[in-house]
């Protein structure tokens, strides 16, 4: 019944082959799996956030408070006041049960990106003033094309203040946003944003994205594993590119089919184009106290910033 070539050793099996570096296929697989797990954990998980005094505050109040403080942070000038805000935010985060490790990961990430953006502002090329450190001496008459350069490149004192202000603002804003996300599960946060006026369609799109991102990543991993299970040795670059393009096409087709099925499922349960969301719970005294505290902190920070 089986053809002659089936399960028989042949010249193909014995030919020397450039072996695929094991790491390349494994790297892609691990990257997909890790990305999928991370996204599923951060976006898809809707387990209740750590129980604390902050998770009990009504989500709308938390959003309003966070947005208020973020707006204040962008308006503050003095680095000492910005640092004080950071200390307050850190204290709130730690007492609200947000893990130290997660906080440190976020805080370490901010300078990495922000410093790359703000570093030129610390130089005398951008911010003139008394020099703190000399970076290099270019000598008189230095220029790049038509632009003249100073004879010495330095880090200036005003430049350091500008950079510090920027970094602290970024740290404060990112920390505030992170605490909001860490103490409020994603579906609740999206509902709060919808009730505060975010367009329903936008909220629904975000919610669907959160719901299905992990599903699609898993599908992408499955496609990759299916290909790996039938791969022996290395393919050339053009073949790999063709395969990747075909895989992207296959994933897009699945996405479209899934989108149509989801739409039908929504229609069959009465969706008529206007998404209805449930009524929010009423604000309580504790929520009012939270909002009042945020307003007081904001006012105090602004006053301190003006006085120093």
């Amino acid at each position: 019944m089986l053809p002659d070539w089936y399960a028989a050793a042949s010249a193909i099996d014995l030919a020397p082959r450039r072996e695929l570096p094991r790491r390349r296929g494994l790297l892609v697989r691990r990257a997909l799996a890790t990305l999928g797990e991370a996204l599923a954990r951060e976006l898809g998980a809707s387990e209740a956030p750590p129980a604390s005094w902050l998770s009990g505050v009504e989500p709308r109040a938390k959003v309003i408070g966070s947005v208020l403080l973020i707006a204040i942070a962008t308006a503050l000038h003095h680095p000492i006041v910005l640092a004080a805000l950071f200390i307050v935010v850190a204290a709130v985060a730690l007492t609200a049960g947000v893990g130290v490790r997660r906080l440190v990961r976020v805080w370490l990430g901010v300078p990495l990106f922000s410093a790359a953006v703000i570093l030129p502002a610390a130089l005398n090329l951008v911010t003139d003033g008394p020099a703190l450190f000399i970076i290099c001496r270019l000598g008189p008459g230095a220029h790049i094309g038509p632009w003249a350069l100073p004879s010495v490149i330095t880090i200036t004192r005003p430049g350091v203040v500008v950079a510090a202000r920027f970094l602290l603002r970024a740290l404060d804003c990112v920390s505030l946003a992170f605490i909001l996300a860490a103490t409020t599960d994603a579906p609740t946060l999206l509902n709060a944003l919808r009730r505060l006026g975010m367009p329903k369609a936008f909220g629904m799109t975000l919610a669907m994205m959160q719901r299905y991102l992990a599903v699609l990543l898993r599908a992408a991993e499955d496609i990759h594993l299916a290909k790996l299970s039938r791969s022996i040795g290395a393919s050339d670059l053009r073949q790999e590119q063709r395969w990747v393009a075909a895989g992207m096409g296959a994933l897009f087709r699945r996405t479209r089919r899934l989108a149509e099925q989801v739409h039908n499922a929504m229609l069959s349960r009465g969706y008529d184009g206007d998404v209805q969301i449930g009524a929010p719970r009423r604000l309580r005294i504790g929520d009012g106290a939270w909002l009042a505290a945020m307003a007081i902190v904001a006012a105090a920070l602004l006053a301190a910033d003006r006085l120093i």
Partner: protein
Amino acid sequence: MRPVEWSELSEPIFEIENLEYRYPGGGVALRDVSFSIEPGERVAVLGANGSGKSTLLHLLDGLYFAGGGSVSAFGTRLTEETVDMPPFSHRFRRQVGFLFQNSDAQLFCARVDEELAFGPLQLRLPQADVEQRVADVLRLLEIEHLRQRSPQQLSEGEKKRVALASVLAMGPSVLLLDEPSSGLDPRTQQWLIEFLDELHHSGVTLVTASHDLSFVADTADRALVLSEDHRLVRDAPCGDVLGDTNLLLSVNLIHAHPHAHGPVTHAHAHRHDSGHEHEHPV
């Protein structure tokens, strides 16, 4: 839990006449199909893969629309206009529930309790009623512990329960089920059979599309058989259909292949759930 307004249903729920449907790409899905479904019936739509079972359910639920012939529900012809027009649209969506084959497509909200609340919210029910329905269906399907979970964290069996709960939260008097037993382990499958039986005794009309003959034997009284060329070839009591080996063989619902019993090897038409246990000539 009794479906709403079931006692008002004295006319056929569905009337299908000379139904023709083609896929957007041009392929034929259904050819000259005619039947009706009365309130309280348990009907199975049987057929091999690609015979048009799922498509037929989509047509019954007003998600697809007939290219030829007609599909009527509650005395109203289902067209793109009528399905969207209140008050019929409201009544239709409330009365007819559809359990999709792909639970991932059915569960599109971020959390189980949101999923269950979706349908009642679309019906514009008061918040208190919505919350009551969510609590009731969680208890009915024994999934209270899944309330705050995300659908992607659930097993297939749990997803099926949640999907069913999300449909039941609207209180339908008719339930369309597309391959409900696919991907379920034996215990979950048995649970589903018993649950559907309870629903039926509460007055819910069941229409199940499946090629799983053992499942259908336990959940239907009447069978509509679709052939591989997309025609309705038999409409008869389930027992008669499942006993007609030639019919089942002709529509690719059972097969014949060689199998061995000790020293004896033979081939005949059978189902794997029961067919290997039989007498054979010595």
